[in-house]
């Protein structure tokens, strides 16, 4: 079995990955394991928050819906700005990684960076994320993602939280320029799970655990 095939299977089945719409920072001393499986591919990340504004970790992505590129990088997440409001919280984050990309046996240096702006109250959620990826000679890409969400009921801390969300991705370089994904998010304490179905007929399954 090819290494990339094996890693894809591993990512899809067991490993954790980056949910870019969830916050990329935890509390100081907290560790996050995240996984994202959607129409762009399979992503895994593991991050440790060492100061209130920064987390350091590991990022692995197997791209699909185009070139099947495998990226492996350390990642560094930074809280650039936070607004703590009486009924909500707004944030701007940067996530950056530099490492290796592999495509059809060709290894190249790679670099990616993304900015995530979000606002969340107990009722509403909004996020916007532009992402820039440079995979050496393999590919250079820019894409963006936005999400809106509403909580149908206001859950208490110990209750199961439910969100109905709608996500739109814009990938100028891919076959499907715009992809819409309605999804449902559940979270309970430190466990988050999302499931959705995209307009280009891919199932989305994301999860995150903090400990």
């Amino acid at each position, binding site marked *: 079995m090819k290494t990339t095939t094996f890693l894809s299977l591993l990512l899809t089945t067991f490993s954790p990955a980056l949910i870019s719409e969830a916050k990329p*920072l935890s509390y100081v001393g907290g560790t996050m394991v995240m996984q994202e499986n959607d129409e762009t591919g399979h992503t895994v990340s593991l991050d440790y928050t060492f100061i209130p504004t920064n987390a350091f970790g590991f990022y692995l992505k197997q791209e699909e819906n185009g070139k099947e590129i495998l990226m492996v990088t350390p990642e560094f997440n930074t809280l650039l700005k936070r607004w703590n409001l009486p009924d909500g919280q707004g944030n701007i984050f940067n996530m950056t990684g530099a490492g290796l990309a592999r495509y059809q046996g060709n290894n190249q240096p790679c670099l990616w960076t993304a900015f995530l702006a979000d606002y969340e109250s107990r009722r509403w959620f909004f996020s916007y994320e532009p992402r820039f990826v440079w995979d050496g000679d393999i590919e250079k890409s820019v894409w963006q993602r936005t999400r809106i969400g509403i909580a149908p009921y206001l859950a208490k*801390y110990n209750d199961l939280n439910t969100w109905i969300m709608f996500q739109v991705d814009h990938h100028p370089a891919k076959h499907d320029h715009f992809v819409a994904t309605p999804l449902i998010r559940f979270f309970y304490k430190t466990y988050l799970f999302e499931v959705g179905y995209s307009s280009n007929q891919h199932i989305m399954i994301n999860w995150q655990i903090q400990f």
Partner: protein
Amino acid sequence: MKNYLLTLVVIFGLTAAVSADTIKATVNGMVCGFCATGIEKTFKAQPEVKTVDVDLENKLVTIQTKQGQTLQDSKIKKLLGNAGYSVVAVARQK
């Protein structure tokens, strides 16, 4: 009379020494279970803390300290700041 006063002072002092604080911090930015868990874990790791309760609806973090121990306002603000939140007010009762 002197012994009586001394006894009162000792009793009062002992009572104060063994009492616990109930601290209510009003916090901005708490909106979800992840927020609450981070705050709960942060305070439970403090040796002075007996219990922590997070009330998202009323934006309150209620901390009960162990007998004879307390948490200074500055420490509460620092801990909540490190967890990513802003303290609006701190109220105490013995």
